[in-house]
């Protein structure tokens, strides 16, 4: 079944009960659970088993800011065609949380399926006539099989995976293998979990027929890995040579620091047990960035990871890093705004905050990874860039990339690659009489040399301060010295545009004057929408920007098109603002396509929003061209 149809056909005939949805390796399953009920590992097992069958999966947790009791959802998109963004819509719902039942049932596509725990009878009003209902008495089955309440609850989760495996054709051998791997350290749990799985599977096999949504073994996954962006970024930091990590817990960035700790324990311990790293959980984000700046000043690669509220607190230090020219790396895992609640949802809403963080005239390079694969490469590259540019470099993840597992190409590393410490003057260079002016542009790229403290007994020491200094780091409050320095910093920023990852263009099949620009976690949904739009006759050249400052290619692309749709997951069109501010692009040239309800953007949303915009554009052009002819 061509998947373009799966997002391109949005309406169904309303009259008779629609036929049951039928698809092979192309559907969306959504679980609704209660936080803390132990469902996460069962749901993970479900997703991973499909991947092991060689069928690509995009899985997303939607969770509240609490530990126990509130609703959570887990959405599994199965896409033989390899679409890893959210599609939109639900084909098979598994609502196991009475609290959210009504909304969960409402979401099911007409002709879709509802799988539920039928232990307690529900009134007909709790269902819909245009969907297919499958009941399995999960609670009854488990109450009979288990005595201990906690076991009843935990095994109920595995039990529904068993029932579903029969309904959609998950290979039980794959489940068995996964359970063996997961419980390798506690082998007793393997038969126990397998038995619970079979309880569900056997019941379903006896009482139910497989549904129209079916899995078929495939080789579409290839050798891809399934990993979350925070772990990938942490691994990038290890490979990038970070030695100092200072952080303060905040969702959705916490797991980045935790993963870094884990990887350091694996890879950075010396035979004598000493550590080639130092990780400090600080008292707040101000201290975290202060430690990073102090370590960067003293020549260690250091980073912090945080989210928007943390960036707000770090502002003063980020400015100091800019003016005093001190390397620092900040991973910003973006979320929705202040307080709790929305913050456990995803957004791309810190772009402006990060790009211009701090007081005075400041701007900072941002790297914009699209998936965990790029979290790894950019995570490592950020350290080379910040050392080279002697400034703060942001890596802008979001919750969708950071905390969800994505299917990506395996990580790669070239063993010949050496850490680039940038322009650091050594004792030998100083001894040889090399000129050293801390804030002097010797190479014409705006980047001066620095020395690490302790380098040489009587050469190369300097006093670091914010702004009031001349090219030799001497104290100066003269306007000309200030301006001279600021011009050099601007030149350095232009150099940054040539060093950061460049944009990637995706040409339409037909020549077109319409373009689209997007970035980050929007990417997979965007690619799917572009295919569907193309099938619907809308040809669009697309560019994924991967960093700020933008290279000239980005502006050339914009100028080569009559209209550019700028797609982003925030309310205020922040990428569009950056393009306008830095590139002097006319507002009317850039049409905003915005999605910011906290859920990851979907291909269906993009298909609709961009499609509508282009239809409207066609219509006005027909009107104006008619008018022209009159």
């Amino acid at each position, binding site marked *: 079944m061509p998947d373009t149809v799966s997002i391109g056909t949005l309406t169904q005939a309303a009259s008779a009960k629609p036929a049951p949805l039928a698809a092979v390796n192309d559907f969306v399953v959504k679980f609704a659970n209660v936080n803390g009920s132990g469902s996460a590992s069962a749901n993970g097992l479900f997703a991973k088993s499909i991947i092991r069958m060689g069928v690509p999966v995009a899985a997303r947790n939607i969770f509240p800011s609490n530990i126990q009791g509130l609703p959570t959802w887990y959405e599994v998109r199965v896409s033989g065609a390899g679409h890893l963004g959210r599609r939109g819509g639900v084909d098979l719902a598994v609502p196991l949380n009475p609290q959210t039942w009504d909304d969960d049932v409402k979401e099911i596509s007409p002709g879709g399926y509802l799988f539920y725990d039928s232990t307690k009878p529900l009134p007909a009003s709790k269902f819909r006539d245009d969907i297919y209902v499958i009941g399995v008495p999960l609670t009854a089955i488990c109450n009979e099989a288990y005595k201990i309440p906690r076991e009843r609850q935990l095994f109920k989760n595995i039990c529904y995976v068993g029932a579903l495996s029969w309904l959609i054709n998950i290979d039980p051998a794959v489940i068995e293998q996964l359970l063996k791997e997961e419980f390798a350290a506690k082998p007793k749990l393997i038969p126990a979990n397998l038995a619970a799985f079979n309880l569900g599977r056997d019941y379903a096999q006896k009482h139910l027929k497989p549904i129209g949504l079916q899995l078929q073994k495939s080789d579409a996954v290839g*050798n*891809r*890995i*399934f*990993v979350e962006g925070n772990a990938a970024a942490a*691994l990038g930091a*290890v*490979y*990038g*040579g*970070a*030695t*100092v990590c*200072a952080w303060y817990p905040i969702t959705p960035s916490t797991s980045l620091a935790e993963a870094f700790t884990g990887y350091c324990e694996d890879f*950075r311990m*010396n035979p004598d047990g*000493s550590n*080639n*790293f*130092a990780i*400090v959980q*600080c*008292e*707040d984000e*101000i*201290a*975290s960035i*202060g*430690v*990073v*700046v*102090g*370590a*960067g*000043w*003293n*020549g*260690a690669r*250091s980073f912090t990871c945080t989210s928007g509220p943390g960036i707000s607190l770090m502002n003063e*230090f980020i400015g*100091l890093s800019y003016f005093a020219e001190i390397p620092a790396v900040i991973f910003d895992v973006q979320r929705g705004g202040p307080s709790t609640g929305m913050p456990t949802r995803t957004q791309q809403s810190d772009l402006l905050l990060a790009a211009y963080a701090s007081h005075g005239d400041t701007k900072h390079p941002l790297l914009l990874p699209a998936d965990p694969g790029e979290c790894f490469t950019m995570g490592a590259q950020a350290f080379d860039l910040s050392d080279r540019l002697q400034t703060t470099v942001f890596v802008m993840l979001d919750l969708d990339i950071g905390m969800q597992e994505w299917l990506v190409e395996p*990580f*790669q*590393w*070239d063993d010949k*690659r*050496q*850490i680039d410490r940038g322009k650091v003057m050594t004792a030998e260079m100083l001894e040889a009489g090399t000129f050293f002016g801390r804030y002097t542009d010797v190479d014409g790229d705006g980047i001066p040399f620095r020395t690490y*403290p*302790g*380098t*040489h*007994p*009587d050469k190369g*020491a*300097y*006093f*670091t*301060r*914010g702004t009031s200094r001349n090219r030799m780091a001497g104290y100066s409050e003269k306007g000309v010295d200030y301006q001279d320095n600021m011009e050099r910093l601007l030149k350095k920023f232009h150099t940054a545009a040539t060093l950061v990852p460049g944009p990637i263009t995706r040409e339409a099949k037909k020549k077109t004057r319409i373009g689209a620009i997007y970035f980050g976690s929007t990417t997979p949904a965007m690619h799917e929408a572009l295919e569907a739009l193309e099938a619907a006759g809308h040809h669009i050249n697309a560019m994924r920007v991967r960093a700020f400052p933008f290279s000239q290619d980005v502006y050339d692309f914009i100028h080569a098109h009559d209209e550019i749709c700028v797609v982003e997951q925030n309310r205020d069109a922040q990428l569009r603002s950056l393009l306008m501010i830095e590139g002097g692009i006319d507002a009317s040239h850039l049409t905003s396509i915005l999605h910011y309800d906290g859920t990851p953007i979907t291909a269906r949303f993009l298909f609709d929003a961009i499609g509508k915009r282009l239809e409207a554009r066609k219509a006005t052009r027909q009107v104006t061209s008619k008018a022209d002819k009159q």
Partner: protein
Amino acid sequence: MTYILKPKLHHPSLPKNELGFTRRDYEGRVSTLCAGCGHDSISAAIIQSAWELGIEPHRLAKMSGIGCSSKTPDYFLGQSHGFNSVHGRMPSVLTGANLANRDLIYLGVSGDGDSASIGLGQFAHSIRRGVNMSYIVENNGVYGLTKGQFSATSDKGSKSKKGIENTESGIDLVALALQLGATYVGRSFSGDKDQLVPLIKGALSHHGPAFIDVISPCVAFNNHAGSTKSFDYVREHNEAVNRLDVILGRTPITADYRPGEVREVTQHDGSTLRLRKLHTDYDATDKIGAANYLQERHAEGEIVTGLLYVDPEATDLHDRLGTTAKPLNQLGTSDLTPGADALAKINASLR
């Protein structure tokens, strides 16, 4: 203020330390502080201490926040790297610098506004974290640089220059430092160089968080009658519990005191702190006793000075983190990057 440039040539007869450096080699730029400012005396004491200890200037890093006090690192140890950071945040910057290279000596200079007001949190956490540093607060009870507002160490009842009385309780940083786990705690007075220099020397040779509160009158905004941080007030109320000599490992110790009068404490680096007791009951290695004594004397309106507490068994943040002996900033690609084979294994675990 003075703008006279210092002569560059050294007088041949200036005494030299064991490295062959004169005091001049430990000086910095000419101070731009008000003539008579207590902070300049502290800079002079730092110069004297570093010279007497024979510290190689480039092996010391000096860090500060913002304030008149925080400007002073520019006025001493001109051959050392210095970092005048942001207001109240010197402790975190120093912590990071220390993590990057455990081999240097870290001297943090701050003010009472910098450390007790905006920076109280960082002051507290750097100490409880056990950062190996000498943390000096140049305490004048006011914000000098912003022209004389009360700071958080200003005593309740102390009067501002305009006669306004401070109604908020003052923070005693020494009491806090003790509670927070500083392993070397002293208090002194910028006007008492004989007491201050050994205290700084002891701090610089201490392995662990060393804190010294130095009362340092602000002649421009807080040196009038009615202020509890004026020269006159501090001279009258200063109550020293001991006199300290710092004896480096290599100097032979000669016993010229009566038994019971002197207490010797050997530090991690081999230096010896010789404490001549001025108060027979005061034991500088008894933390609880020290805290009680401070409270009692404070209630009496006394300013207790001297080496108030030292833990010769002190450890630091690196000891606790288990960091490698080699400075982190000197590790190279092969120490840090696990390589392609390790990555292949990680990939395999993620399928």
